């Protein structure tokens, strides 16, 4: 276990995690009130990964995430207001209300979704990294996915391609032990995921995903190595989701006791305990941070609720980027020239 570096940094990490937790707790409320609809996948329990990994990236690196991406989007620095507006289907949402919870996109921070096909984001990440390598830009593409994706053919094809071409991809596997109701032992003949990446000849580590000091450290080391030109790297973070898979899941497949055990190791709890043990902080810090976050979240909800609905006659805008009717929409394809 790595020592805490400084109170300032530790509190930053704590704040980053708490913002995610509290944001999602609010999402649950809004979902119950039917303000949010569709599929919604909560990240609670896994916050240390998003925070650690996003801290390791530079602003011009890229992120490709999954449908369980609220945490990554928030940790990446995307405003809670536009994220919440997206979940409410508002035009002011990060994707103009067209994506919803599963499809947060943000060109400014090079956040390439929010991809809802398991494994489907990996080839995209390989391509983004290929573009960087061919353009001689020293940028990293960070690709996040669950351990369920490991069974998909695209996982293997993508890892092979990234390793073969030595592309600057950071593969981040969030191994929360279940893919919906399927425990990893029921989906993989060999359950040690990080070894699968090693089989492609890339650096690969298994890291405790509940301790944000560890997650950040591992990500920083991997990113440094990638930036040095060593090709892709892989981190398997061992973690757990504290909530159901989505809002429709009755959780028949796992024990309440197992969930409770993991909650004991919750990332916020773990960090607060470490702060206290090191004499660098106390539970009061958490309380203060939570209060701060709640203010931010209320503002985000207000922003989202005040948002507008996209006029129906704009429905077919942006089916094609070069459609003339796109012109009257404020959001303009910002990324066309690859910058």
């Amino acid at each position, binding site marked *: 276990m790595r020592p805490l570096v400084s109170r300032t940094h530790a509190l930053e990490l704590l704040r980053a995690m708490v913002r995610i937790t509290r944001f999602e707790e609010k999402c649950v409320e809004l979902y119950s009130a039917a303000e949010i*609809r*569709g*599929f919604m996948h909560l990240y609670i329990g896994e916050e240390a990964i998003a925070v650690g990994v996003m801290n390791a990236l530079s602003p011009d690196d890229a992120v490709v995430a999954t449908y369980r991406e609220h945490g990554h989007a928030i940790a990446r620095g995307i405003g809670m207001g536009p994220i919440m507006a997206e979940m409410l*289907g*508002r035009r002011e949402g990060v*994707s103009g*209300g*067209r*994506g*919803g919870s*599963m*499809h947060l996109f943000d060109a400014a921070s090079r956040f390439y979704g929010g*991809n*809802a*096909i*398991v*494994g*489907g984001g990996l080839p995209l990440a390989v391509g983004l990294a290929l573009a960087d390598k061919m353009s001689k830009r020293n940028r990293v593409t960070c690709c996040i996915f669950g351990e*369920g*994706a490991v*069974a*998909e*053919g*695209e996982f293997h094809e993508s890892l092979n391609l990234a390793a073969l071409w030595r592309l600057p991809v950071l593969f981040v596997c969030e191994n929360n032990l279940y*893919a*919906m*109701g*399927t*425990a990893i032992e*029921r*989906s*993989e003949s060999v359950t040690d995921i990080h070894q699968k990446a090693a089989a492609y000849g890339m650096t690969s580590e298994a890291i405790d995903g509940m301790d944000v000091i560890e997650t950040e450290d591992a990500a920083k080391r991997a990113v440094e190595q990638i930036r040095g030109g060593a090709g892709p790297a892989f981190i398997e973070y061992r973690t757990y989701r504290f909530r159901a898979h989505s809002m429709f*899941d*009755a959780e*028949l*497949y796992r024990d309440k006791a197992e969930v409770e055990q993991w909650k004991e190791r919750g990332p916020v709890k773990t960090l607060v305990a470490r702060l206290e043990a090191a004499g660098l902080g106390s539970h009061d810090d958490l309380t203060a941070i939570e209060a701060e976050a709640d203010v931010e979240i209320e503002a985000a909800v207000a922003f989202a609720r005040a948002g507008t*609905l*996209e006029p*129906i006659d704009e*429905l*077919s805008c942006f*089916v094609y980027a070069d459609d003339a009717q796109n012109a009257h929409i404020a959001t303009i394809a910002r990324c066309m020239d690859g910058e």
Partner: protein
Amino acid sequence: MTTLTYRDAVREAIRGAMQRDPRVFLMGEDVGRYGGSFAVSKGLLEEFGEERIRDTPLSESAFVGAGIGAALGGMRPIVEIMTVNFSLLALDQIVNNAATLCHMSGGQFAVPVVIRMATGGGRQLAAQHSHSLEGWYAHVPGLRVVAPATIEDAFGMLPTALQKPDPVLIFEHALLYNMKGELPEGAGPTDLDRAVVRRAGAHLSLITYGGSLFKALDAAQVLAKDGIEVEVIDLRTLRPLDDETIMASVARTRRVLIVDEGWKSGSLSAEISARIMEQAFYELDAPVARLCSAEVPIPYAAHLERAAIPQTDDIVAHARRLVTRGV
């Protein structure tokens, strides 16, 4: 009569088939411990055990291919692909193997596999989770494609599909699972070959299937109040299409509106329109019209999604226009 949901009907169909035939088994993502992503298979693991209610890894291509292989090997697999959206990952197996093996081997091998999947939009699941691609699959010779819309068909089509020596794709519209209805005492296998007239009417043939059927029936009710009598045809089977039932209806009404949740260009509705052109051109009093989904990736926001997918009021409006149009 039993009152049950569409979901229950599918489950009972699976249960019955598994009780009757030891070669039948169910395989797919989360069909076992999770109980099925739409709770279709809830309880079946306990009843039949994990050999026959087989959870698979997230490997659509391999487990669909394994279903085809198991069918070649004498089993009668029911493969569940969670939704049609993920079936794209298994398309090679379906199109290049399941659909070709019998013909390509000169009739030596048959592929009696049943592949079920949920389809359709309307739940605010956005672009990657709202496809209606059953019409697309209906393009492929060697496949049978069906879309049970009623509880009776949800219950009755599966056993018939399992009797077929050829691959049968069953598309279950996700919005139907919660629908409640009655299953007549003694309900059994239903055919996979015929469309049926769900409501008779003299002024217009409204041809549809799956999730749009009930919107069409609702629309017919609204129109009836204005004296417009709509004949509603439930295609039931998308490949092969039942030309006879379609053309008989056209001959009666001379006007046709096709409602299809697929994107318009290249949809199943196009094929039906083309067939009416070919087989009943001289019977038409007006050009066949189509009402389909807007040609956009289906958006999340409720009002946009609603606008993208054919709704009852759209059907009413289109039907009204068509009937009042001059000859």
